[in-house]
């Protein structure tokens, strides 16, 4: 009996991520969703600039490396080239999606572009070595906010799910976390749903995954997972922010639990 196996949609290339980084978990969840839906042969992934830049080596489906922040625009092009045939997803970090690529994100959502977006929010720029991200928490110490994020100077974090939920366009927005087994299971369900929505032609589906960056947070992996519970989730409440097909359409300030 097989108790554990690598998803087919992942290649055998060893991941380059740091110890305790949760990218590996999310890669696996994406690959499992692709496997379970049987869509690997018609899936095209778009990798970001950021820690996941080399995701194109890790997924076995066709992959495209996009310019920083432009993945939703690239995905739009790919999807429009064969709307019936292709399943297209982007995999983006917070700097990529919520800073340099905000316009592409908002407009792909506004168009209800029929793509799946996996958004890794770990509140920091990992690849360049720990600078302040658009989602860094108020007071959070980073290389470029050495005295803590001062909201009077740097402004406030961008809450992507809340922001996009105010648009008429998108089909499905959910925020999940991958800091414990229960949350990982929920994240798995959300990511699979985001792909299923695309298969069903429902439109723009984004899953924001609250993730850990122990290296740049300066913590051990277990401290980092706890920090998510203590600091990240209170600021970024988990839940479904929009699910048009299920009748969850905000206006309401609170996320549906």
């Amino acid at each position, binding site marked *: 009996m097989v108790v554990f196996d690598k998803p087919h949609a992942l290649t055998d290339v060893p991941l380059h991520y740091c110890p305790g980084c949760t990218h590996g978990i999310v890669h696996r969840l994406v690959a499992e969703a692709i496997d379970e839906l049987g869509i690997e042969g018609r899936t095209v992934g778009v990798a970001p600039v950021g820690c996941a830049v080399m995701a194109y080596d890790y997924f076995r489906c066709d*992959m495209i490396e*996009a*310019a920083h922040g*432009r993945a939703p625009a690239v995905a*739009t*092009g790919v999807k429009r080239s064969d709307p019936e045939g292709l399943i297209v997803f982007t995999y983006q970090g917070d700097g990529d999606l919520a800073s340099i690529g905000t*316009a*592409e994100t908002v407009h792909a959502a506004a168009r209800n572009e029929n793509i799946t977006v996996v958004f890794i929010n770990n509140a920091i720029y990992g690849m360049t070595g720990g600078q302040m991200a658009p989602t860094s928490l108020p007071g959070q110490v980073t290389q470029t906010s050495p005295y803590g994020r001062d909201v009077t100077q740097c402004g406030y974090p961008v809450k992507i799910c809340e922001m996009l939920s105010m648009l008429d366009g998108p089909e499905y927005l959910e925020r999940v976390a991958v800091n414990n087994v229960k949350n990982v299971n929920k994240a798995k369900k959300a990511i699979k749903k985001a792909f299923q929505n695309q298969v069903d032609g429902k439109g723009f589906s984004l899953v924001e995954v609250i993730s850990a960056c122990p290296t740049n947070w300066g913590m051990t992996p277990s401290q980092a997972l706890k920090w998510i519970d203590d600091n990240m989730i209170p600021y970024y409440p988990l839940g479904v922010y929009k699910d048009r097909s299920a009748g969850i359409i905000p206006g309401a300030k609170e996320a549906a639990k």
Partner: protein
Amino acid sequence: MAEKVLMKGNEAIAEAAIIAGCRHYFGYPITPQTEIAAYMAKRMPKIGGTFLQAESEIAAINMVYGVSAAGKRVMTSSSSPGISLKSEGISYLAGADLPSVVVNCQRGGPGLGGIQPSQSDYFQATRGGGHGDYHMIVLAPASVQEMAQLTIRGFELADEYRMTSMILADGTIGQMMEPVSFDFEIKEAPEKPWATTGTQMKREHNVVNSLYLVPDVLEAKNFERYEKYAMICEKEALAEEYMLEDAEIVVAAFGIAARVAKNAVNAARAEGIKAGLIRPITLWPFPEKTFKKALGTAKQFISVELSMGQMIEDVRLATGCAVPVTLCKRAGGMIPSPEQVYNSIREAAGKAGE
């Protein structure tokens, strides 16, 4: 021969793209090229194509990147300030060896500049525009018929060499109407086994990418690309030669400037001055051989440009500065008059000791 219709240059580009099999167009409004977007918006939905008004020029060029990666013919268009925004994407297209067609209907700059015709994006176009070692094939139409013809050629070259073809037009050619015939034979797009169209579980995954973190691998990629460029320089350089056989004063001009220059050359010939014209049709590759050939009789070259003098550098390089090269220019949206060019030719003829 198909019936000729009267059409704006911008519309001719759009129609030609459709004839070339382009079914995806992404754009953003900017004067003086917006007719292309308007034409595509009208036609694409009727032929099962995609017209999308992107949120920015940056988004538009990245949508182009996506369609091209998926193996389809695709085009975007803009005017000077918008091309600056697209330059990031054009560099990525070059780095990933993706074919595309980009139209620049130039207007005066720098900055927001103006909306009147210009040729001041010559450097940007012929030197690549974005970061890194790369070139685009740059085609310079001088008539509405050529707007159509070179657009089709642009798609063919883009696919053949897996690079961006830029149609470097200007506000005048874009806005003017002339008779145009769409009687073209279209080369089918070649097979694109590299495209990300889904593995269908039948092959290894394709990766479209411009990232190479190992420097010697990246160097090898660049070397390989420049071998291709050398071949293009050898095979694809194109120029119109007008009254060149015995020309002592050789005017160099492309696009709208060449049409003005032709009037002036005719006037000079009527006066007995041995004037001629080289009209580069490909700006990259620059038709160096035509210039070298003209050196046989030329005593002076005059570069006529709607800029402060950009192509003149290539004329000097191509002729090795063997004879004087002077500049006849207007800038900022102004166009030299035939009289201005004619006077430059006469002045040169005097200096040349006619």
